[in-house]
């Protein structure tokens, strides 16, 4: 027995020595990266199909392997990617037309618009088959079909018909005229020559049988600078150069996307060299990245970019406390957002005045400001009937204490820090705020949509460049049991003027006039505070020092869409 034990120990030692001896060099150098560049991401995409389920991880992957028809670039301008010329009313490629009799567009006017696109003549799928209007029409059919599993059907339903002029040119007839008439960003093309047979065979089972998941390495599915070479489900995706890519050649032969969920492990993997870059779109949190830069700033390049995540405090306007405008104004005066930003985030967040991002063209800073002013906050609270008591807390005449709950997502360290600072600062003016966090699925699945919170909820909305806040501000978008909790106006904000503005803005094609409306909307927002603005969250992109050309957009379109501009500096 003892001899056996000794033998085992020796064997273990040998095995360990063997394992340790086979040590590869850390892949840090640019030369090695040219062959294979390894990027760490914090999540693995569930399905590779472009239109079923939307996930950042998938959008990131698709950025390397596909291209959008149109997109918002880093200057937040709408540009063509697959199309040759952006159709506008000015250049005649978009023509307003009267809708056919009996068309129901939900009351969006009598006119539709016919928009003409031409696909790049060089565009081909990865197996050499040209990308044609047949693919466009097929994609639309799938998108319209009620059982295909496509998530967001609205965009497809607004298309009345598509005319194929020739193999590369098509005309889209839309059921309404709004200023986003020429944006085909989320219309991601599907290869008809591969998918049509699968889809028409059994539309109901399409989402399980799609080649994107059953055969992801088929080159015909991909048409970007890279295509999928191999997949280890749940762990990593290997991309290789697409020989049929018609654009500029990218710098790397292969790219490997490795999914590591735990952010501490993600960081450790970067430091140990098993990955070379952490994707900013789904990587470390801002304060983690700041700490990382502080220690390793010499060995890595870190780029920060403000993104369209509007972090705010959503009040339940039906509540007796936060429903009072003066209380909301006081709450905003009582917190020092600049100090929080400086101390917790090294000033990298962008303080928000309203829900419009400063990088948006229609942004205006000419609105009511709420600087840090505890005295003013106290005055407002007194005015609202909440007087400070001997114990330091405020109460009204009925003796009820000024107290409410602040809710947010459990397990999010940055938010927990912010919550605790806010709680402290509000305590200084006598407001008793208790923190109650829930897992994201509970908070976003039930509590917020069903408006089960009595005070404030701290979270972020993700939006797009110049996105009209219909779902968050229009009075018809208040989630109620009657409409099955649809709509994102969980604050319960209702204003006739704002409703009218939103309705008018969507169909205003003249940019000047629209700008005027936006400015008025922002002024009203700051005056009426349907939510308490905090900041727009920034993302941190951590990359090797020799990598150039990577420019974060700040909007929801990932940097991988421009991978052919990434360069290796010598």
């Amino acid at each position: 027995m003892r001899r056996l034990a000794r033998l085992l120990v020796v064997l273990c030692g040998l095995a360990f020595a063997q394992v340790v001896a086979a040590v590869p060099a850390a892949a840090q150098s640019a030369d090695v990266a040219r062959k294979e560049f390894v990027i760490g991401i914090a999540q693995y995409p569930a399905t590779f199909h472009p239109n079923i389920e939307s996930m950042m991880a998938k959008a990131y992957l698709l950025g390397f392997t596909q291209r959008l028809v149109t997109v918002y670039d880093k200057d937040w301008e709408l540009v063509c990617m697959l199309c040759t010329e952006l159709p506008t009313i000015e250049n005649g490629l978009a023509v307003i037309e009267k809708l056919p009799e009996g068309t129901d567009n939900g009351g969006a006017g009598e006119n539709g618009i016919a928009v003409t696109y031409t696909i790049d003549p060089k565009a081909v799928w990865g197996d050499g088959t040209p990308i044609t209007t047949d693919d466009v029409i097929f994609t639309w059919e799938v998108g319209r079909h009620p059982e295909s599993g496509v998530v967001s059907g609205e965009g497809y339903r607004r298309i009345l018909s598509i005319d194929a002029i020739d193999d590369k040119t098509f005309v889209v007839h839309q059921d309404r005229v709004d200023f986003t008439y020429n944006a085909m960003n989320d219309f991601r093309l599907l290869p008809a020559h591969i998918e049509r047979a699968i889809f028409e065979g059994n539309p109901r089972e399409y989402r399980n049988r799609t080649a994107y998941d059953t055969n992801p390495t088929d080159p015909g599915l991909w048409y970007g600078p890279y295509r999928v070479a191999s997949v280890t489900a749940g762990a990593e995706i290997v991309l290789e150069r697409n020989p049929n890519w018609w654009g500029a050649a990218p710098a790397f032969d292969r790219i490997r996307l490795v999914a590591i969920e735990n952010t501490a492990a993600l960081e450790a993997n970067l430091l140990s060299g098993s990955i070379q870059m952490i994707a900013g779109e789904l990587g470390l949190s801002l304060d983690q990245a700041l700490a990382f830069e502080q220690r390793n700033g010499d060995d890595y390049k870190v780029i920060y970019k403000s993104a369209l995540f509007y972090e705010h405090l959503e009040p339940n306007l039906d509540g007796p406390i936060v429903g009072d405008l003066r209380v909301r104004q006081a709450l905003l005066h009582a917190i020092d957002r600049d100090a929080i930003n400086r101390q917790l985030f090294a000033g990298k967040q962008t303080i928000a005045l309203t829900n419009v991002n400063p990088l948006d063209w229609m942004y205006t800073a000419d609105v009511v400001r709420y600087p840090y002013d505890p005295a003013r906050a106290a005055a407002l609270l007194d005015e609202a009937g909440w007087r400070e008591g001997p114990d330091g807390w405020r109460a009204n005449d009925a003796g009820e204490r000024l107290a409410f709950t602040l809710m947010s997502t459990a397990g999010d360290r940055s938010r927990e820090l912010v919550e605790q600072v806010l709680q402290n600062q509000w305590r200084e003016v006598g407001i008793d705020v208790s923190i109650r966090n829930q897992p994201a699925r509970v908070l976003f699945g039930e509590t917020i949509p069903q408006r089960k919170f009595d005070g404030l909820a701290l979270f972020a909305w993700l939006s797009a460049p110049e996105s009209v806040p219909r779902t968050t501000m229009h009075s018809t978008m208040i989630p109620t049991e009657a409409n099955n909790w649809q709509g994102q106006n969980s604050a319960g904000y209702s204003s006739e003027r704002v409703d009218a503005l939103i309705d008018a803005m969507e169909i205003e094609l003249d940019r000047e006039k629209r700008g005027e409306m936006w400015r008025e909307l922002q002024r009203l927002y700051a005056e009426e505070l349907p939510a308490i603005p905090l900041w727009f969250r920034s993302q941190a992109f951590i990359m090797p020092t020799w990598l150039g050309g990577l420019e974060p957009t700040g909007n929801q379109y990932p940097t991988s869409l421009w991978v052919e501009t990434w360069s290796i500096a010598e």
Partner: protein
Amino acid sequence: MTDLSADAATPVAPILRPSIGRLLLAQPLAVAAAFVIIGMAVLALLAPAIAHWLDAPADAVDLLGRFSPPSPEHPLGTDELGRDLLVRLAYGGRISLGLGCVAAVAASLIGIAIGLPAGYYGGRFDALLMRVTDGVIALPLLPLLIVLAAIDLGKLGLPPEWAHSPVASFWRVAILVALVGWTTVARLVRGTTLSIRERDYVRAAQAIGARPARIMLVHILPNLATPVLVALTLSVGNVILFESVLSFLGLGIQPPWPSWGNMLTNAQELIWSAPMLAIWPGLFIFVTVIAFNLLGDGLDAMLDPRGRRD
């Protein structure tokens, strides 16, 4: 052939031998462990006093004093929000130790209540209880935890201010641990009961006609005391570790209440920039858990009714 009369005359409960001093000396590790635990408990109890003495309440945020190194005002430095680390560790001890003891005791009681009858009666009854045990072991904790996290206690008739306070999260975790933690004790108790049941003095008691309840309580239960006590001290340690895992998953004690577990989880990402924030709670957990383990181990040796080796 064993001497039946000798066994039947064996005292039914273990008697601590008079020479406690010798006992203690033979278990230096256990004694040291006991002192450590007492020390931790004292620290936890004195938490408000420490906060008062340092004039640093556990949730006093100081944005300008983040991550400051140890100083006379803050003996262990401050954390990521400028709060005093020592005070938070002390308050955290209250939560972690309190949770450990409460949950472990509750789990043990349930475990005995299930394991003892199962082992004694055997047969279908035993089979049923053991299958239930197996089922509970296999039950996934996570959906249970999420559902519990989502239940609005206010709706269950409890006063809303209490239901939404961090106190509720304490009891949520404690109840959950008790509900799923009894299985180890139950299995242990059942196994030991199975063996003891076959012993001659138990058979003798049965032959005399004693009622099962009496046999279980008077003959078997005292002999369970040692293994259960040992299992209990071990499980306090496990509960403290479990609490830190819950915090890791985002389901533990919620802020701003500190617990060693959530302090450790928050410090994971800071391990390069502020290692002491991670080392202190980790150290406290480590030392406390190992102390409970050693204590249990020492108790095992001390209370063994068969006497010690010569």
